[in-house]
C-alpha cells in the first residue's frame, strides 16, 4: 500500500522509520519526509544532533527511574522536596503531568509500566522491588497509575504490598473516564485528582 518509489531506497527507509513513530500515519510520514528533505542542511543536522545527544545524555534515575541527565535526578536530590511523600506513576512522561500542576511537592517512583498478565508483565518486570526498598522513611504513597484495568490492578497490588509496611496508601481521585490514561489529563483535572485522593 506504500507508494514509495523503488528508485529512492533511502527515502523509503526514512518513510518506514517515521511511520513507526506514535501518531504518525503513512500520510504524515510522507509529509515529514518531504519536509526534512526540503529544509536547509543545518536544520536537518540540528534534528539529527538533537536526537543523538538526547539519546546519549538522557538516562534513567537510579533511584526513581524518571528521566534525567544527572544521576540521581534533581527531584531526588532537591532538599526542598518532601521525601516522606512518594507518587508512583507508570511512565516517565507521567512525571511531567504531575509536575505541571506545581502542586505536588513530594518525590516520584516510576514503575516502567503496569501489571499485564496478557502481555507477560508481572511484578518482576516492573520497578516494584526497589519501591518496597524505598519504603522506610516514606509516610504516604500516592498511587498515580492510569485509571484503566491494568493501572487499577497495579494500584491494588501495590497497596497490598505497601500497607503492611505501615505506609499510608492513597489513590488519585480521578475525574477521568475509566479506561483513560493520565498522560492526557490537563493540569486542572490532575490538581483536582491529587487533592481528592482517597485512602486505599
Amino acid at each position, binding site marked *: 500500500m506504500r507508494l514509495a518509489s523503488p528508485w529512492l531506497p533511502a527515502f523509503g527507509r526514512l518513510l518506514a522509520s517515521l511511520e513507526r513513530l506514535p501518531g504518525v500515519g503513512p500520510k504524515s510520514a510522507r509529509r515529514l519526509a518531504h519536509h526534512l528533505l526540503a529544509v536547509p542542511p543545518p536544520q536537518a543536522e540540528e534534528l539529527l544532533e538533537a536526537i543523538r545527544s538526547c539519546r546519549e545524555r538522557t538516562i534513567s534515575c537510579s533511584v526513581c527511574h524518571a528521566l534525567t541527565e544527572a544521576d540521581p535526578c534533581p527531584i531526588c536530590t532537591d532538599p526542598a522536596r518532601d521525601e516522606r511523600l512518594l507518587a508512583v506513576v507508570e511512565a516517565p512522561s507521567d512525571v511531567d503531568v504531575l509536575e505541571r500542576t506545581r502542586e505536588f511537592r513530594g518525590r516520584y517512583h516510576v514503575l516502567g509500566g503496569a*501489571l*499485564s*498478565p*496478557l502481555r507477560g508483565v*508481572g*511484578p518482576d518486570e516492573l520497578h516494584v522491588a526497589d519501591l518496597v526498598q524505598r519504603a522506610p522513611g516514606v509516610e504516604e504513597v500516592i498511587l498515580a497509575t492510569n485509571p*484503566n*484495568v*491494568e493501572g*487499577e*490492578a*497495579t494500584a*491494588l*497490588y501495590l497497596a*497490598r*504490598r505497601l500497607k503492611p509496611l505501615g505506609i499510608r496508601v492513597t489513590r488519585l481521585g480521578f475525574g477521568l*473516564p*475509566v*479506561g483513560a490514561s493520565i498522560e492526557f489529563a490537563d493540569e486542572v483535572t490532575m490538581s483536582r485528582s491529587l487533592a481528592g485522593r482517597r485512602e486505599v
Partner: protein
Amino acid sequence: MEIHSLSTENFRNLAGPPAEFHPGLNLIVGDNGQGKTSLLEAIAFLAGRIPFRGSAIDEVLSAGTSAAVVTGRRGGPPAADRRGQGGDVLGVRIQDGRREHFLNGEKIGRLRARKLLPSVFLTAEDLGRLTGPPAGRRAALDRVAHALEARHGSNLKAYETARAAKTRLLGADPADPAALSAFEGVMAGAGAQVAFARRRAAEKLARAFRRQADELRSPFTDLSLRLRSDLPESGDEATLRAHFQERMTAAAPEERRRGRCLVGPHRDDVAVMAGESPVAERASSGENRTLVLAWTLAEADLLLEQSDAPPLVAFDDFDSEWDPLSLDRFAEAVPAGTQLFLTSARPGAVRSLPLPTGSLFRMENGRLRREGILGGARGPARLLSAEGAR
C-alpha cells in the same frame, strides 16, 4: 426515530443509488442472498449495533476493499427532507476491524450513535433466543442496560479485560496470589457495576415483557423474566461487590485447579419463567417465538422511555418462521409513529397485516428499487399501486 435515506460504499453486496425510506412501513422483498439482511445490517451499523450472524466487523467489507462507509439521514421534517434538506447525517466508517461514527461529519462515540438512532432488530439468530446459549439473552439484556446506564459498556469491557488477565494468572505456575487478588479487585469493582446495571435493566424489562406477552396473548400465565446470577438478586453496588469478592475467595481453590473464572457476571443468564418453572422446554417452538416477539417489543418500549420518539423496528424475513397470528398482534402492538423495516422472500407478505402506510421495495443483486406504495393507515395493508413489474 426515523431514517430517511441510506447510502453505502463497499458494504457487503449493497450497490446502487441512495435509498429513500418511508417514515412508516418499508417492506423489502427479494429472493434469498440478494441483500435484504445486509441492508438491515447496514442500518444496524449506523445505529451502533453489533454485526449480525456473529460476524467479525471486517466481514461486512465487499470483497477486495479495505473500508466501508454507511451514511444515513435521520429525523428532520419529511417535507424538507424530500428536497434533500433537514435532519442530521449519521455515518459510520468500518476499517481495520474498527468502527468510527460520525454526526454531520464530526466524530461521535458509539453510544451517542445508539442514542441518535434507537433501534430494535429481529433476525434469524433471535429465533432461538429462549432455547439457545445464554450469550444471546445476556446481549439482549445488556442492550437495555446500555440504554439505562451510559457507562455499562465500558464497565463490561473493563470486567472482561480483568477476567482475561485473571484467567492467564490462574494458568501460571506458581500463581502469584497478590497479582491474582489485584485483578480480582478490579473484576469485583467493574463486575458489581455491571451486575447492578443488569438488575435494574432486568427489572424494567421483566415488567414490559409481561405486558407485551399478554398483548400477544401468550398462553402462559404468571410470566416473568428473571436474571440468573451468581450474585444476590438485589442490593446496591457495594453489597454486590462484597458478595462477589466473597464468592471469588470461596471458589479460589477450584478456580486454581481448573484454570478458569468460575463465578461472576460473565455467567449471568436470563430465564423466562411461567410461575416457578422455565418456559423454554415446555413451550412449542411457535410459543417460544411469540415470547421472543414480546421480549423485542418490551425492548422497544424501554428504548421509547429513554427517548422522545419510538425506536426504529427492523424485522428480517418476518413471515417465514413466525406464526401469522402473533405477527398480526405484533403489528398491532408496534407503537404508532414507529418506522418499520420488514423483509420477506414473498411479495404478498403483508397483505393481511394491520400495518401503517409505507413503501414496497424489491432487492435484487444488492440494488434496492421502490416498487410501489402500501396503503392502510393501520388497516390491512394493500398494495395500492405497483410502479415496477409484477
